[in-house]
């Protein structure tokens, strides 16, 4: 699996440089929404890797090599998780820096980032099986669903986050409920999503 992750990283490297720049701008100027948005957007990076794979017909080559279906499928999830974690960390460090520097745009709220990570895992878990089923080319319509999920969840999370005073004693209301539900939803969806993706991928290859 390490080799597959390395391949995706090399493939995405050019794309990642642009993404980092966009992340920087969005995170600095869009406060809470920007933080969450870039974290969830990071979940889209595996699709770029999949599109490159599809264009080069890498799957045909991979089928001849000692990779298991599990390696190939899980590597895309792991890539999504790594990108999400890196984006969340990057956003947190940026916001911390802005807070330290006294910027009026600072929105340092690690809990928001964690919620963004969970939403990102949910987006991955919902959309990856569909990509493995239809492929990236045919699954273009799916992109509308993905964009809707990304923007919708980022918007919803940020508006809830903004309405909550994190400094008050204890969390309550919709954000507290989300804090409890989102991680569980992310774990449950992922647990269903991975085997489903493996099944779809194996069926497409056969």
């Amino acid at each position: 699996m390490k080799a597959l992750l390395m391949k995706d990283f090399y493939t995405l490297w050019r794309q990642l440089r642009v993404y980092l720049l966009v992340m920087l701008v969005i995170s600095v100027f869009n406060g809470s929404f920007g933080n969450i948005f870039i974290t969830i957007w990071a979940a889209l990076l595996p699709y770029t890797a999949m599109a490159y794979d599809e264009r080069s017909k890498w799957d045909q080559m991979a089928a001849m090599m000692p990779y298991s279906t599990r390696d190939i499928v899980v590597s895309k999830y792991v890539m999504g998780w790594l990108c999400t974690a890196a984006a969340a960390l990057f956003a947190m460090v940026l916001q911390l820096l802005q807070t330290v520097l006294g910027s009026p745009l600072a929105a340092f709220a690690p809990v928001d980032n964690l919620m963004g990570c969970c939403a990102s895992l949910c987006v991955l878990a919902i959309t990856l099986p569909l990509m493995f089923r239809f492929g990236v080319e045919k699954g273009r319509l799916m992109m509308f669903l993905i964009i809707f999920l990304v923007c919708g969840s980022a918007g919803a999370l940020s508006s809830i986050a903004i309405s909550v005073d994190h400094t008050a004693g204890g969390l309550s209301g919709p954000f507290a409920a989300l804090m409890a539900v989102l991680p569980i939803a992310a774990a449950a969806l992922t647990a269903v999503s991975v085997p489903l993706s493996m099944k779809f991928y194996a069926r497409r290859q056969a």
Partner: protein
Amino acid sequence: MNAIQLSHINKSFGDFAIRDLCLEVPSGTICGLVGENGAGKSTTIRLLMGALRPDSGSARVLGTDVSSPEFRAVKEDIGVVLDEAYFPESLNAVQVGRIMAGTYRRWDQGRYDGYLKRFDLPLKKQFKDFSRGMRMKLAIAVALSHQPKLLVLDEATAGLDPIVRDEVLDLFNEFTREEDHSILISSHILSDLEKLCDYIAFLHKGDLLFCEEKDRLLEEYGIFEDSRENLDCLMPEAVVAREETRYGGVRALVRRDLAPAGFRMEKPSVEDIILFLVKGAKNR
């Protein structure tokens, strides 16, 4: 032991089917897989690598059933070159080497670097900027650098210039000097196969018409080139296929065992035999 053993494989795709394919490639030999476009060569290769599931029948490679979980480990011993080198376009040769080092346990980086040098491949150029010949050379370098026991080559020499092709064929010959090393190679360049192979397998529209030792095949048939009257003296079963020549005569592939002793024939090439067999199959 057989390096490859396909037993009664059937696979249907609707308008095309592989029918009752039985193919054995003994260990230590080179088998050439011949056939027209769409005859089923690439499908056969995908079936024997477990990348396609047959509707019925079984495939064993290096003694292991390809549908078993153990076959994944056996793939370490198989170097594959497909009709195109399907590496992601943004990679370069150095990155491909690093990825393969993480893929194959017995990856030999020194050997890979040696092939890159020998084939004069650029290290940092993106794969998308490679010519077809360069792409195939990179795929061959990868296939040979993880110490395989079996090479499966699908049109691996297509797109190479004659000098490099000759060098690559020498490499394949070198590879089979180890007695447990085997090759299955499909190619349209029949002269390459004649130079390289011990066995020739001929696929026609999904049917394996024969898989025979090359020398026996060359002994089995003769090329007759003379007047139509002389050819018509033979019993019809002896003539596999015929064609008119520009000078009013005929040229035909004739089965030596059905021709009378002393009947004048020339030694055929593998290309002659295959072309006449295809023609004969079409006329049937």
